[in-house]
């Protein structure tokens, strides 16, 4: 059975939430593409370059413009009290708190991965260890990104109870 939630979000904030989620997911997906490509014996540097750059930009949008604004102006006063008063307050105190802080790692990791690829380009194939490091860093972005996304779904669901 689906229940209507009582919180009304303005259209403006709804757009910010949508941009935050979609840009974050796109960023994770693009770095997933970086991982799969970087692990090939003959990677496509066109894909590595553009996926890493667009992935970094997507994560920056998710962090700053959309997610940050939504979190600072809306989550604290409208969502957090509901979760804290619910049967599962740990969804805020553990899941959301972890999510909002671990997410901060991602832009720096994304920037570094992008930099390794852009500064080396095709010569990365002659540096297999560096190429693999870029792949591992990108995999960490994907792993943390997936965890953060799932956390977001749990938080939204709990707030709607």
């Amino acid at each position, binding site marked *: 059975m689906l229940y209507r939630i009582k919180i009304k979000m303005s259209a403006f904030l709804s757009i910010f939430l949508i941009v935050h989620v979609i840009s974050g997911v796109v960023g994770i997906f693009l770095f997933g593409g970086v991982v799969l490509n970087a692990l090939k014996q003959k990677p496509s540097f066109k894909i590595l370059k553009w996926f890493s750059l667009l992935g970094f930009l997507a994560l920056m949008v998710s962090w700053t413009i959309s997610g940050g604004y939504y979190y600072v102006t809306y989550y604290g006063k409208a969502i957090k009290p509901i979760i804290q008063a619910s049967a599962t307050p740990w969804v805020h105190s553990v899941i959301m708190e972890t999510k909002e802080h*671990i997410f*901060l790692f991602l832009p720096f990791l994304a920037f570094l991965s992008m930099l390794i690829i852009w500064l080396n380009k095709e010569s990365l194939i002659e540096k297999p260890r560096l190429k693999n490091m870029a792949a591992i*860093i990108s995999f960490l972005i994907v792993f943390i990104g997936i965890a953060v996304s799932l956390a977001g779904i749990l938080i939204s669901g709990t707030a709607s109870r």
Partner: protein
Amino acid sequence: MTDANKSKIIYSVAFGAIAAVIFITAVTIGADLYLPLKGWLKNVFSHHWVGKSVLSAVVFGATAFLTMIFSGQASEEKINKALKVLIWTVILGSLAIIGFFIWEALLK
């Protein structure tokens, strides 16, 4: 750009990222254990999370810049070592943050 400069940039940014991850972990745990710190972040930046975001970017930039100025040549071996340290710092930092919040919420 020469290969030596490219290597130095990557090395410096890797160090910047290590410093940022350590800072984020430390300020996250520190601000919850020492509430005046959280209060200070809120007063200066209007929200503690904005403060953590801004300061982590400052730490990242400053560390990368200083490493660029003061470090010598960055060999492939040095870069790979720094990246390994970064990977472990991220893993341990993540575990520390989630462990801390589990302890604070459920076990404290």
